[in-house]
């Protein structure tokens, strides 16, 4: 993108396409109102992702990952840890002198946990940003729309009612969580729509709250009826990356990958939605279809993330809004950056969660909410100013 040849080739390709298909039978070529051959576009700078922002996001993620790798109850020497990681990089001739146990701590405990944290954080932030875009609602996040509590109910049902299935090669837990999440979003959609305008921020949030409360109530009822698994359900709900192994990473990676590709490719369409459904349609963008695709992708990814990590709140609102404050309102920038900063943020939050009371752990959901609640209030004040 950006090279003159590439653009010209693409233009040529499109021109050929246009002459081949008459498009609704238009007999004459489209009106060329402004086809000035001059080099006028010099003054036009469409909002694009900036390399500097991406580099910053990668730097934050790397820094968080390295810090996370070095800190832990096993108290390994930092130099040896880094040497051990470097020794796995092909073509680098580095040797560390760690015992087999220490190597296992690095590769089977710390590393998968970092990767899992990064995937979950990226997914939650991206889903939050996408929800905010399609609902024209600055306060939408996976939690507020009831996705997470829907997934929570689904996961609880899986843990309680289908314990024998947990030994399956493919765990039913994410599938069940996914089904619950879809149900919750559908219910929130239906309730929000009955208030006529889907764009209405408060009616959507309220219906999300209602749906979330309902699913949480059902979940509480179920778990109280099955005290033997109470602890398992509870530790799942509070959110933790502590049971992480590579299997969890493998489980959610396809979901997160597909959802991320879909959502990030919709970034330009989300900008078009900001003029409202009607005007978006008049410039040729089907808002309802975009909204459906985005909600499905975001729900799928969120459900997978929540299924392995529990209900980690506020990531979907802290990260996109911080990015928005820094780089402006265009989703062309927000969505890709949400991936990077979301990943970095959750890896850092997990570091806090497991090192503040080391060797004990605070549930990571507590850490993100502790940071998120005050931030939420700031965002609330901002959005009131714009309303």
């Amino acid at each position, binding site marked *: *993108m950006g090279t*003159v040849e590439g*653009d*010209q080739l*693409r*233009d040529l390709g*499109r021109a050929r396409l246009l002459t081949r298909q008459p*498009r*609704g*039978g*238009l*007999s*004459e070529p*489209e*009106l*060329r*109102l*402004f*086809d*000035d051959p001059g080099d*006028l*576009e*010099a*003054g*036009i*700078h*469409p*909002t*694009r992702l900036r390399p500097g922002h991406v580099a910053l996001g990668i730097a934050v993620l790397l820094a968080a990952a390295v810090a996370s790798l070095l800190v832990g109850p096993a108290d390994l020497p930092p130099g040896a840890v880094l040497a051990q990681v470097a020794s796995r990089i092909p073509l680098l001739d580095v040797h560390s002198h760690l015992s087999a146990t220490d190597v296992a701590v690095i590769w089977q405990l710390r590393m998968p946990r970092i990767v899992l944290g990064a995937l979950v954080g990226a997914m939650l932030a991206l889903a939050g940003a996408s929800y905010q875009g399609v609902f024209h609602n600055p306060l939408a996040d996976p939690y507020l729309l009831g996705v997470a509590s829907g997934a929570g109910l689904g996961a609880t049902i899986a843990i309680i009612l289908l314990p024998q299935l947990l030994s399956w090669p493919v765990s039913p837990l994410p599938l069940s969580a996914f089904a619950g999440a879809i149900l919750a979003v559908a219910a929130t959609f239906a309730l929000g729509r009955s208030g006529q305008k889907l764009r209405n921020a408060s009616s959507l949030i309220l219906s999300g709250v209602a749906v979330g409360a309902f699913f949480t109530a059902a979940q509480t009822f179920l778990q109280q009826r099955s005290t033997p698994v109470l602890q398992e359900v509870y530790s799942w709900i509070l959110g933790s990356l502590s049971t992480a192994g590579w299997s969890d990473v493998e489980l959610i990676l396809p979901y997160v990958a597909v959802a991320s590709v879909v959502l990030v*490719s*919709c970034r*330009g*369409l989300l*900008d*078009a939605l*900001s*003029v*409202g459904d*009607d*005007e978006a*349609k*008049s*410039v*040729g*963008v*089907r808002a309802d279809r975009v909204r459906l695709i985005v909600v499905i992708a975001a729900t799928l990814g969120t459900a997978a993330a929540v299924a392995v990590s529990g209900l980690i709140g506020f990531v979907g609102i802290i990260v996109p809004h911080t990015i928005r404050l820094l780089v*402006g*309102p*265009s989703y*062309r920038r927000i969505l890709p950056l949400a991936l990077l900063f979301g990943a970095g943020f959750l890896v850092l939050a997990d570091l806090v969660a497991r090192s503040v009371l080391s060797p004990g752990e605070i549930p990571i959901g507590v850490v993100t909410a502790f940071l998120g609640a005050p931030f939420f209030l700031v965002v609330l004040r901002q959005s009131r100013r*714009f309303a």
Partner: protein
Amino acid sequence: MLEIDNLVVELGTQAVLEGVSATIERGSWVGLVGPNGAGKTTLLRAVAGLIDYRGEICIDGCPAPRRRPRAMARLVAFVPQRPLLPSAMTVSDYVLLGRSAHHHVLASETRRDRRIVAAVLERLELKPFARKPVGELSGGEAQRAVLARSLAQEAPLLVMDEPTTSLDLGHGQLVLELADSLRREHGLTVLAALHDLTLASQYAERLLVLSGGRVALDGPAADVLDQASIERVFGASVEVLAGRDGLVVAPVRPRRSAAGQAGSRSATPIASLR
């Protein structure tokens, strides 16, 4: 260019348009006038493919591709009466939205898209505001930005719904002159609802007078706008004068005495209150 045949639109249970038919020639300017609630906006939205309708709308002899918004957007550009302005978006990003139907759904804009946006901004004297957020524009500038977005669509039919409502006289004239010069230079076809009958008669070659969801009158302004028809359709007391570029429709105070004007005014509820 545009043939509308027996158009019926129902919103909820209420019929808003009850069999509207009209033909609009390529390169002409047709003004749509009528009292509040006559169905002007509904007609324009149907032509732009934004609402469901019964009957037939043909563009260049073919049924409008109303189920395919991208194809519609390349045929009809729509300027809404109250556009929803994304206040933090830059003007050039906003105008680029008009190119959405021209590049691939998921791709970003091409060099040609940027060139067209630059030319449109130049033409509408918006170049200095290209990087400014839309929310910081004045009313006139914002209206021009909306027009710029629809012109960037390069659609042969420009549909405008009361484009001068939020503008003062000078800025209103500027917008209308722009549309008219593009029409003359490039054969753009314009269908515009205008509430100001004087402006409508100055710019439109033909007026479509809508009343109660039907076409009440159809013809050149000089033929359809006279004191009696305006009183009948709009329930307004006016004097119609001959101006330099068209008619001047000047409102006058309704006669208060029961004698003189009673006949023509008695049909309206306002008159019956008096």
